[in-house]
């Protein structure tokens, strides 16, 4: 059987279709965010907010177990994302606030929130009795399980993707202007401070929802590698955005297919495919 036939057969499985759809939506959101993250020199933000998601999931799981919702509520109510998303949102806004109000650099501000979130995650996961099944596997949370994505998660990702993509495209011109030169944009009436809070808040929500599928450890790569590869090839911010989306989506679909065909961990296959594109871009860069 040829590789193409294999691929077609692979994509016929519902779980593969869900994985491809979730991966593609995450790739689009992360690429749209990633171009601003890379150009604002905030590459560490992906790591920081992904670990905030870990802290939030830990708190969320603990709240569900201790409130008794595990036994009573439906699948949606039992999802720790209800706590993880607001927690990461507060973390994202907190990082933006520290950047805004202190003279600390971005990586320092992110590093503080990163450490606190991991500590909270470990603390709250450790308080859950080992015999209680909370529906959250810590190893899956860390390394991702995109092939195991369920319809509930896919629905949540789709809702966030529609909101985030609409907002990012609507604000793209002002975000790009403020990214180029914050002061210049402000003289033209762009509310760049508000946009920065919005960008951090959106990144927090997108990363938290995505990290539960892609994995916390690999999340930052989604945000950074497609945008970085696109930057090497692009001559304009618009083409960088378009290339980042194309690279993100195509490497995700290729990574999902390769992981199935060669029995590889899916998250690793996606990130390594992205890295391969980055290496090609770096070698073909025009000087």
């Amino acid at each position, binding site marked *: 059987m040829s590789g193409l036939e294999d691929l077609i057969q692979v994509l016929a499985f519902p779980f593969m279709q869900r994985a491809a759809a979730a991966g593609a939506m995450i790739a689009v959101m992360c690429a749209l965010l990633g171009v601003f993250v890379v*150009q604002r020199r905030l590459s560490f933000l992906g790591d920081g907010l992904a670990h905030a998601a870990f802290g939030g999931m830990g708190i969320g799981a603990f709240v569900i177990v201790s409130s008794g919702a595990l036994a009573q509520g439906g699948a949606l109510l039992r999802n720790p994302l209800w706590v993880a998303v607001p927690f990461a949102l507060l973390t994202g806004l907190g990082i933006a606030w520290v950047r805004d109000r202190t003279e600390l650099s971005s990586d320092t501000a992110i590093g503080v929130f990163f450490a606190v979130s991991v500590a909270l995650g470990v603390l709250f996961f450790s308080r859950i009795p080992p015999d209680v099944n909370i529906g959250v596997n810590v190893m899956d949370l860390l390394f991702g399980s995109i092939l195991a994505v369920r319809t509930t998660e896919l629905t949540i990702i789709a809702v966030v993707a529609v909101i985030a993509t609409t907002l990012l495209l609507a604000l793209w011109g002002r975000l*790009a202007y403020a990214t180029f*030169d914050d*002061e210049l944009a402000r*003289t033209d009436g762009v509310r760049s401070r508000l946009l920065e809070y919005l960008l951090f808040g959106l990144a927090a929500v997108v990363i938290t929802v995505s990290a539960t599928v892609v994995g916390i450890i690999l999340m930052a790569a989604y945000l950074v590698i497609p945008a970085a590869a696109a930057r090497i090839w692009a001559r304009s*911010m618009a083409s960088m955005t378009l290339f980042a989306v194309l690279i993100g989506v195509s490497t995700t679909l290729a990574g999902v297919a390769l992981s199935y065909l060669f029995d590889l961990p899916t998250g690793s296959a996606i990130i390594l495919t992205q890295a391969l594109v980055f290496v090609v871009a770096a070698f073909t860069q025009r000087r």
Partner: protein
Amino acid sequence: MSSAARTDEGAQRVASAAPQRRVPVLHVHNVGVRFGDAQVLDDVSFDLDEGQFLAIVGPNGAGKSTLVKVALGLLRPQRGHAALFGRDAGDVPERIGYVPQLKTFDRTFPATAVELVVTGLRRSWPARPSRRERDQAHAALAQVGAETLVDRPLSRLSGGELQRVYLARAVAREPAFVLLDEPATGVDYLAEHDLYDLLERYQARTGATVAMVTHDLAAARYHASRVLVLNRRVFGFGLPDDVLCDACLQEAYGHVGHSHVPHTHRHALR
């Protein structure tokens, strides 16, 4: 005819055409700015009238760029206030053309000259400039002698070329007030000379008001119709010949540890 006489004449023409109460283009009143323990601006007041060319001079750390930020509404002073055309700067962005310091420019940002100029027209970053915007940007670039740079990446431009593109961006929508923060930093003598020439031509054509932060006292004396000598407070504001005197400069520059006005500047001013 000197630049000062020319621009004053222009201002008088405007004044006679509008006999009502004349609102200064830039009004700065008792402005005080403090960063922590440091008093950066103290009781700064002056009015800049239509058609004038103001040079803001002073030593490093004198508060020149802070004053620019206050004028543009980017920084709210703890005391006093500033107004452009009688209003907050944020209310009249379409009437202001701003050229920031080139040293703040991010060379990693993927952009072409035409895209930067179009930001001056639509006040957001263009994903794809329209045909009309491209034509307008091309005209603005031609006005500053940079029409060949249209599709050049900004990262590949020299300091002088970049300066022209920023100036084209600032004048693209023909603002009534052009404000430049040390535009000659990092460019050679000829590029600096070209800049003043372009500004004077723009001013002669449109009657616009220009204010510029500069370290070049000789250029301030030659090109400006008004000079503001600043070192936290105002040490002199008026005609270049009156303000750029040794005693005034000695006093202003001496406040930040200079024992004397740089010899080269004194020589240029005699």
